[in-house]
């Protein structure tokens, strides 16, 4: 049995729209989503009445005690279809982590199965008023009883433990991570839609920032935002009649279930071992390997994920990512650098989850990146942790 995706290169991205990314949008999230959906459909050269599939991943990713309300703090596939006045043949939401790869996989499967011909895939991110992760819980039941009573709570400590494990094991310096932040913010500063547009970060600013949960400081975390992205997908055959050059989905992988652990406990060895299994399946699914990828867009919602993806994707040896980035290995302005954050990532755009990675793959491979246009053929868009997320391989050509 081959691990190659049966529909490899048979489904394509054919259009997109992206809202501005801001701390708090003036319009409700649902309204912003409707606007980007209409613009994306027009961008693809289609009419709304041609859209017969809607896919999203509706997770509202805060540890705080915020209400989840469709159209306000999240936007489901059915909410968008209803409010566009469309009765789709297929509408579904991806429930796991690794939301963009998961949603792309659902859209590809729906189109390949003939469940829908033209799918709108959106991701709507919301920054609620008040503290994003602060939680007033008075008691801890269920799985939280094993962690919250001792003060282990929220994603900062979650990422601090495996990052410190990495630092201690491999001798990684804070200067190395400064290179990651400088690269993400340099590229984000060039994007008109980014929250960080025109605002690069210097290594000195990064190094001067106090810790929140050692070795994690504020700059290691993407900033919560309101923002929406929408993509349109269809079959490669239908894509040939549409205005933009198609970008094909070559393969995808969602991370295998990790070892049972305490809530939010992500030991480094879990990340690396399960992550390597994720990327092995990714290359099998797509029919390419790491040496063929010229646009690897790594997830960076927390900065250490850049190291973990560099190593699990096989772009540098295990334990070497910190030296790799310090030696200019990810400088997208250098001919010998890998452009892993050329799209700014989450650190350079705001908390858009896997959107910046997918958008950069689309823009570059469709030849729509404008002044930032690079020469690239095969892209990878990663999301979340290698052991707890997923990734998609995109291609400018069918193969």
């Amino acid at each position, binding site marked *: 049995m081959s691990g190659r995706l049966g529909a490899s290169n048979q489904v394509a991205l054919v259009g997109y729209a992206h809202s501005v990314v801001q701390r708090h949008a003036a319009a409700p999230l649902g309204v912003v989503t409707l606007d980007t959906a209409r613009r994306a459909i027009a961008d693809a050269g289609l009419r709304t009445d041609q859209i017969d599939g809607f896919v999203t991943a509706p997770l509202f990713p805060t540890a705080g005690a915020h209400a989840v309300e469709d159209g306000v703090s999240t936007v489901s596939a059915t909410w968008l279809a209803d409010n566009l006045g469309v009765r789709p043949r297929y509408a579904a939401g991806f429930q796991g982590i690794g939301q963009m790869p998961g949603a792309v996989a659902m859209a590809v499967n729906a189109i390949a199965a003939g469940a829908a011909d033209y799918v709108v895939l959106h991701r709507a991110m919301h920054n609620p008023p008040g503290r994003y992760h602060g939680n007033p*819980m008075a008691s801890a*039941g269920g799985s*939280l009883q094993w962690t*919250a009573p001792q*003060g282990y*709570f929220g994603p900062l400590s979650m990422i601090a*433990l495996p990052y410190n494990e990495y630092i201690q094991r491999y001798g990684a310096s804070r200067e190395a991570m400064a290179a990651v932040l400088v690269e993400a913010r340099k590229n984000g500063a060039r994007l008109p839609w980014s929250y960080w547009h025109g605002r690069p970060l210097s290594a000195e600013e990064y190094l001067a920032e106090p810790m929140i949960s050692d070795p994690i400081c504020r700059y290691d975390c993407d900033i919560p935002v309101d923002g929406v992205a929408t993509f349109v997908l269809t079959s490669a055959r239908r894509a040939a009649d549409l205005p933009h050059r198609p970008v094909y989905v070559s393969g995808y992988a969602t991370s295998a279930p990790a*070892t049972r652990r305490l809530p939010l406990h992500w030991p480094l060895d879990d990340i690396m071992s399960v992550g390597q299994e994720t990327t092995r399946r990714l290359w099998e699914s797509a029919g390419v390997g790491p040496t063929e990828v010229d646009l690897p867009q790594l997830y960076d919602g927390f900065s250490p994920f850049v190291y973990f993806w560099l190593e699990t994707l096989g772009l540098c040896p295990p334990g070497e990512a910190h030296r790799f980035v310090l030696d200019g290995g990810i400088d997208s302005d250098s001919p010998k650098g890998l452009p892993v954050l050329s799209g700014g990532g989450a650190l350079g755009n705001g908390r858009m989850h896997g959107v910046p990675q997918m958008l950069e793959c689309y823009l570059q491979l469709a030849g729509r990146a404008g002044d930032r246009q690079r020469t690239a053929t095969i892209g990878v868009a990663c999301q979340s942790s290698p052991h707890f997320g997923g990734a998609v391989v995109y291609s400018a050509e069918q193969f």
Partner: protein
Amino acid sequence: MSTPRPLPVPDEVSRPYWAAAARHTLVVARCSRCASFVLPPGQTCPHCHSVDPRFRFEPVSGTGTVRSWTVVRQAFLPGFGAEVPFVLVDVELTEQSELRMIGRLLDGPAAALRLGDRVTVAFEDVAPGVSIPAFTLGAPV
């Protein structure tokens, strides 16, 4: 009076764990089928995949080694505002490879730590009849 920390809510499975903690004894769930320690215990055993693991809580040595740590400097939960900065350690218990739990290190935020440091369980009495497992550096006294 300061805001209390979140207290654990014992359930059908975890009740013996918290009852033992109140007596300052660390117990860990053990699968009746394959004898593996499991933390946290769930519906199934992650080692032998039994759907009827009949977990029994058994006392463990309370010793282990530090696999990682973080210094928490900003509280996201009530009751910890006065505690910051504090150290959380990721500990591999002596009894079984990769049997890991997370607890506060009670030696203070300036404690010098290295991977592999030995720690021993200690308990914080946070409310009448409620004690939370934590750790201190070194071997048992």
